[in-house]
Structures are given as C-alpha cells and as structure tokens.
C-alpha cells in the first residue's frame, strides 16, 4: 500500500514509465540487432497487408466515409483512399480497418497487438512530422518495446477481468511510437506514456465475442489515444508519472499487476517475440486450426462430428462467441473449424456477412464439440487435439502443442511476403517496394503514394 505522505514531502521517482521513456528515447537503428532490423520492415508489411485486405472487404465503409467527411486539417493519409485527415483521425481509421481481418501480429509476452496499434499511430504522426523512413522504423520498434514493457506487469489482471489486453496496452505502444517519431524529448515521451495509461480503454471482451463492430476500434482507438496523448504531452499535460507504482489508485489497483520491482525492463529485441497470424481468427482458435490442417483434405460428406480438445481460455471464449456475426465468429472454434473444412483455409473471406449466413457452414459448425484438454490446463499449453469422426467409422486425429507461425515454427520471410501479396491484392507490389526501401527513404511519400494508389 502507498505510505502516507505528510504535506511537503517530495514526490517519488517512478521507475517503469521513466525507464520505458528513456528506452524509447535512446533507441537507435545502429544499436539494434541485425535480426530486429530485419524484422522491422516485415511487421510493417504484414500490417499493411491486413489494412489493404480490410479496405478490399469494405470494412466499416459507412463509418470510414463518415470519418473522412469530418474533414479538418489534412495531416495524414487514410490508407487505401485519397483522403487525408487530422493525424489522430487517420490513425483511428487505419487501425480499425487494419484490425478487421484479425490477421495482425501479436506478442504473447504481454498479449499485445503491436502492429495494429503502434504502426497506424506512428505512421500518422510521422506523416505530420515529415519524418524519414529510418525514424519511422526506429519509432515502431520503440513502440513495440514500450507496449510489452508496460503490458507485462498488468496482463494477468487484464485477463482475469476478461478485458481485451491489446486494446489497453496498445495505447502505450502507440503513444511511444507517435511521440518518438515526432522527435519528442524523453520527458515528453514519458508524459505521453502516462497520458496513454490513464486514457486507455477498459475494453471488455464482450465486444469481440458478441461480434460488435466496435471491437475493431480496440485497435483504432488505441492508435487515436497514442497520437492524441503525444500531442497533449507536447501541449504540456502529463499523467501521473508513477501510475504503475500506485497500488491503491494506479494502473495496478484494478489490474492486479505484478510488483513493478519484479518487472523486467524494456527489451530491445521485443520485435523478435512477435508472432504473425496465418489465420483470420482470434489467436485462441488457431491451435485447433493448426491441428486440423494436418488432417486435410477430407471428404466433407463423410464428416459426422469433430471433437476439439484445447486450452481453457479458448474453450471459454468459444463458448461465449456469437458465431452468427463476422467478428464474433472469429472467436468460435466450431465456426473456424467448419470454415477450414469448407474453404480449405481460414482467411478474411471466411468471415464476411455472407459467409456467416451460410447454412452449410453453420451446420458444419454444429457438428463440432469443444472441450477443455486436461493436459493443457496447468501449465497452460496453447495447443489442441482434433479428432474427426467419419461415417466410415474411421477416426482421424492430430495434436499440436502450439500454433502455426508461433515460436516453435515462426513464419519465414517468404511466407510473410506471400501472405502480404495475398491480402493486399494488385496494389501490393508498390507498397512492398516502398516498405523494402523504407530504411533509406528521406520521407514517407513513396509509401503513402503506394497506399493511396491502392484505392
């Protein structure tokens, strides 16, 4: 508990926000490992592929058009359109659209969707600031590091409260990226982080499982919060610098954080822990899909039932999901398994309004039973066993202890580029070239031109 402070006592110095701000400020491309430098443009490419897929699907079109109609200062590009909006609004829209296909990356060390929160905020702020490509990549790396460093103390509390961790912690990463790319000094970066910490949404998971459109703002809003926090910090505002060290009324008072003294400091190699997504679903569904793929192809006419044993969180989330909605279906193991069988893959097309309305797909989903695997409970193993029972009497079984493209077998560069090309469509080549050239780019004009041309 906080100790009472008598009037006149000095304030404490806060280690976590200060440490993260110092790390964000000091990070430089030269001092990053070769592996991180190689990974940085790939995370940008992966996210932009998701964004282009979201645009091609017409994600939230009416809402996007309404945001474009807001107008205002033309500071930053709305990807996939000719429109430019105030930086915070561009970050909001780009984050939401990019998240829609649910294929953006994650870092399980703090349950962070780094790309979809950090990159829209950083690119929007960079465009406003006229930053060069190297500054952008440095800021993105710093944003990922900040999000994880701030997220690790509180992630267990977020999970326990059934809150959507990425929507919360993503604000801090976005603030770090936006502040850094705008050239903010260390105290301003710290103020940006503390403002993001007090403004981050509570993000109940209900939006995801019930399939509400606002779930996609769980990426866009943190990007908005990040850009706005950085701007407010430059205007002179700050949150409580010891927001992580105040168990009675700080971040940890609600989120049951680990003692900050036990929390590791920012890791400049955090980007290497990023896991890319091969499927357009919540990560909880993906072990089952990874196992199922081992059993394909299969004659659908012969499938009588499917039993999936997996870890508790995946089972509970799936049980709560509303798989009649495109967003809610992404948390449903039965729906995803059915889609995998019907489509041969689980991509964005499996989660359109038309897809979830298909009777055949829903009927197949009803043949899927999801259970807790006793051997994946303690310790938690994010794996799955799948058994397909066929009308021939045959039973096909597969088991995985992790998900495709996770640490055990990370995605190769070629796999990521192939994913990008598949998601981005015809406009992808120019975007890919611009991202590949980003480190030496004097500004973002080539990338932004490519993103606009994809309209």
């Amino acid at each position, binding site marked *: 508990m906080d100790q009472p402070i008598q009037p006149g006592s000095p304030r404490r110095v806060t280690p976590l926000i200060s440490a993260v701000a110092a790390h964000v400020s000091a990070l430089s491309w030269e001092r990053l490992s070769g592996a991180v430098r190689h990974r940085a443009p790939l995370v940008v490419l992966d996210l932009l592929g998701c964004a282009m897929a979201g645009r091609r699907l017409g994600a939230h079109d009416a809402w996007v058009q309404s945001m474009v109609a807001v107008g205002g200062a033309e500071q930053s590009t709305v990807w996939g359109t000719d429109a430019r909006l*105030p930086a915070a609004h561009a970050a909001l829209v780009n984050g939401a659209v990019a998240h829609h296909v649910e294929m953006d990356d994650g870092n399980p060390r703090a349950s962070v969707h780094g790309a979809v929160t950090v990159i829209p905020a950083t690119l929007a702020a960079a465009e406003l600031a006229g930053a060069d490509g190297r500054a952008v990549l440095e800021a993105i790396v710093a944003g990922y590091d900040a999000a994880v460093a701030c997220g690790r103390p509180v992630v267990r509390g977020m999970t326990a409260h059934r809150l959507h961790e990425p929507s919360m912690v993503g604000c801090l990463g976005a603030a770090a990226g936006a502040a850094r790319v705008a050239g903010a000094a260390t105290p301003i970066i710290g103020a940006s982080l503390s403002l993001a910490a007090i403004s981050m949404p509570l993000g109940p998971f209900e939006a995801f499982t019930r399939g509400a459109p606002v779930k996609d703002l769980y990426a866009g809003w943190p990007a908005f919060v990040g850009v706005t926090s950085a701007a407010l910090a430059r205007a002179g505002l700050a949150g409580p610098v010891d927001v992580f060290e105040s168990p009675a009324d700080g971040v940890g008072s609600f989120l049951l954080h680990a003692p900050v003294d036990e929390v590791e400091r920012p890791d400049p190699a955090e980007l290497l822990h990023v896991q890319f997504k091969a499927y357009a679903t919540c990560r909880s569904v993906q072990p089952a899909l990874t196992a199922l793929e081992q059993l394909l192809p299969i004659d659908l006419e012969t499938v009588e039932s499917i039993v999936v044993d997996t870890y508790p969180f995946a089972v509970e989330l799936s049980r709560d999901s509303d798989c009649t909605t495109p967003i809610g279906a992404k948390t449903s193991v039965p729906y995803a398994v059915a889609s995998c069988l019907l489509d041969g893959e689980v991509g964005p097309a499996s989660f359109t309004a038309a897809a979830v309305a298909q009777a055949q797909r829903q009927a197949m989903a009803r043949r899927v039973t999801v259970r807790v695997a006793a051997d994946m409970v303690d310790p938690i193993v994010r794996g799955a066993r799948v058994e397909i029972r066929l009308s021939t009497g045959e039973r096909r079984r597969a088991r995985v202890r992790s998900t495709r493209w996770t640490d055990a077998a990370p995605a190769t560069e070629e796999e990521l580029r192939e994913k990008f090309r598949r998601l981005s469509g015809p406009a992808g080549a120019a975007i890919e070239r611009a991202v590949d050239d980003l480190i030496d780019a004097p500004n973002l004009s080539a990338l932004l031109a490519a993103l606009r041309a994809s309209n």
Partner: protein
Amino acid sequence: MSLLHEIADWMHCARSGGVAVPPSARHASRRVLLDQVGIARAGAARFGPHPVRDDRVFLAGEPPATDWHAGRKVYAPYAALANRCAGDQLELTAGPECVAAAVAAAEIGDATVGDLLRAVALGASLDDYLRGWLGEAVERHGLHPPAVIGTVVAAAVSGWLLELDPVRLAGAMASAACLTPHSPYSAFSHGASGKTIYGGWSQMLGVSCALWARHGMVGPGSALEGSRGLAQALLDAPGGVAPPPFRPDGWPVERVAFKYFPCNRACHPALSALDAVRPIDPAAVESIQVRTYALAVELDRRSRGRSAIAAQMSLRWSLALALVHGDLANDWAYREEVLGSTAVRDLAARITVEPEPRYSAGGQRIRRAAVRVTLSDGRALEAESGARWSTDAPATDQELRERFARLTRGLSTFDPWSSPETQPVRTLLGQLGERPRG
C-alpha cells in the same frame, strides 16, 4: 432484452411521450446547465486555454459545435472535450457527467433548450443508476467514477439528442462502455495535470460514440452485464452479473448536490464544519482533529505532493488553505505560491484526519465530518456538519444564480437561466459571441 436496450427504450419513450420529464426536473436540469457552463467559462478565464485547445488536438471538422470560451466552431467531440476541461481545475462540477456532450449534441441536432433540459434529466437518471450499481466498485478499484461512468451517460444523452433510434442508441452507449477510459485516481491524488482531462475525455468519447452509431459503429447490447462485459470486470464477478432493475426513482437530477467548495467532495463536510467555528486566527491554532467518513480519510491519505490538484483531494491542505487564505469558495486559493507558504504548510502538518465509525455504520457512507480545533490558549472549538449545499440543504436558485454571475462576471451576456424552452440551443449559444474580457 439487454440492459442497454432497455435503457434506450426508456429514453426513446421520453421522446415519444411515454415518459414525461416534469417541469421540476427540467428546472433542476437548468440549474445543472447554468452551473456547469458558469464553471467552464470561469475556468477558461482563470486558467487560460486548456492544453486540449492546442492546435494539434483542437481541430475543426464536421459536424461542428461551439467552443464556449472563444465562440469558434470545432469538431463537436472536441468542443465537448474543451468545454468540460475548461473548468475542471476549479473542481466545482456537480451533477451528471453529460452537460458538455449534451450541449454539443443539441447544437448538432438543432435541438431546443427544452430538449437539452430533458436530455440532462434523462442523463442524470442513468448516471444515478450506474453509480448506484457500479460506483462503489469503480472506487474500490481506485478508478475515477465520473470518468468511467460519465462516458456512457454522455453517449446516452448525445445519442438521444441526435435522435438515434433505440437500437443505435443502445449501440452508442455500448461503444462508450467498451472504450470508457481507465482513469486511475492517482492522476488526482498525485496531482497530475492529466487529471483535468478526465471529465472532458468522457464527453468527447460520448459524442463520438453517438456520431459513430449513426454509421453502424456500435458496441454490443450486453456491454455492461454480459459474461465478458464491463460490469463483471468492475464487480470482480467473472461470468456476468444480473444488473439491478432499471427503474428510475423519481428524477435524480432534482437531487444533485452542487459543490460549494472548489475541491474533492470528500473535503466538503470538514470545510463546512470548519466554517461553523470561524473566525479563527490560524496563528492561534495548535492542532485540528478531523473525524470523517472512511473514503474521505482514504483520499486524504493518498494525496501526494503540493500541486493544486493533489491538494484539492487533501483534507489537510484544504482546511489549512481555508484558514490561512480565508475564502476558499469565492477566491481561488489552490495556487502554488499559497500552497508553498510556510503558514499553510505548517498548519497542514498540525491537522490529523481519522475515520469516524458512526459515518460508516452498517456499511452506509454518511458524508459528514466532526472538526475539533484546539487553540494555543487551550480552548477547543468543535462542530459537526454535512457538506454545505448537500441534498439536506441544497443550494437555492438564488445562490446558484449569484455564483453563475460571480463566475462569469464580464464574460458575456450569455445566460441559460432565462432562455425559453422553445429557443434553439444554437440561438442560446449565439449569445456567447462576445469574447471574454480580462
């Protein structure tokens, strides 16, 4: 039917005639409107442009609404943000957290003053319900109830004034529940300037959610009571909770307790008790013992540092300021130079604050305080009181009008007190045209 759909239906009935907002509630709403507008204008005049009015944040856009300070038009959510933030540092705002959002939405929707007053009354009912259900849990987790709950209320009144249908109105409230800010109390207790955006952020987000709902960007109807909703998180009840029935008890807007002193409400009973034993020469004070309700003691204990914001949450600093400075209510004393004075610092150190079990009997929170002032000549002065202007002895219309006049002296002819209910809000806001002087 989800809770938010039920609430949205109830609000819709207030438009269709099924629920009538009586004149007494509309009058009470006008009192809230008058006070909050006055506080915002006074705050802007005293403290200058709030940082949210920085050009990087405070942007033009469609639909526009009026910045009460300068009279210019900006994107409506930012108008709500700035108008609520402007007076935040005065720490005088009372009533439902929806007025800035409601005025912005009324302006967008070309609503009348009568509509605005009805919206504030409806918002107060929702605010009262949510605070009754979730307020204690929000406090227990160290979060700031007006910020967390106010977002949903602001979305509700904004959506109502924008004439959203009940489904979209529920969706707007649900978005607000999903995106409501974390808002830890430490911004207040540690005196961070970021605390001054807590009220405004909820107003900005509320208007935004209502505007977004027009275009299909909505939250889930079960955002509050669902198995993964906001309530289960706040109430530590994984799996979902059964919300209490939404049956508005009269019109809570009629029971708003206005704030007499510019500080956290927890300080008010002790300040009121102190007023009862004044005048006192601060130099003659040996010690002051305050016994009050548990939360007030806890908030005082958490208050750190000498910034104005932290001091506004501290009983010890507030009592010391009141004695040394004189008139806490009518003269802004929470200034760095005053807080840093030896007289204030030394007196604050001679004040003790203890919990009084009588004020927490049976789990009730009785917002009272007993103050005992021991003088250096051995005499002791004692008084016990609730907060001045609490619901036991509410501020009169005359008192509120006098405060409004005092707060806005010389700012403009703008006066929401006398505007007819048929008058468009846009016309009322047109009276803001005169720029502040001085």
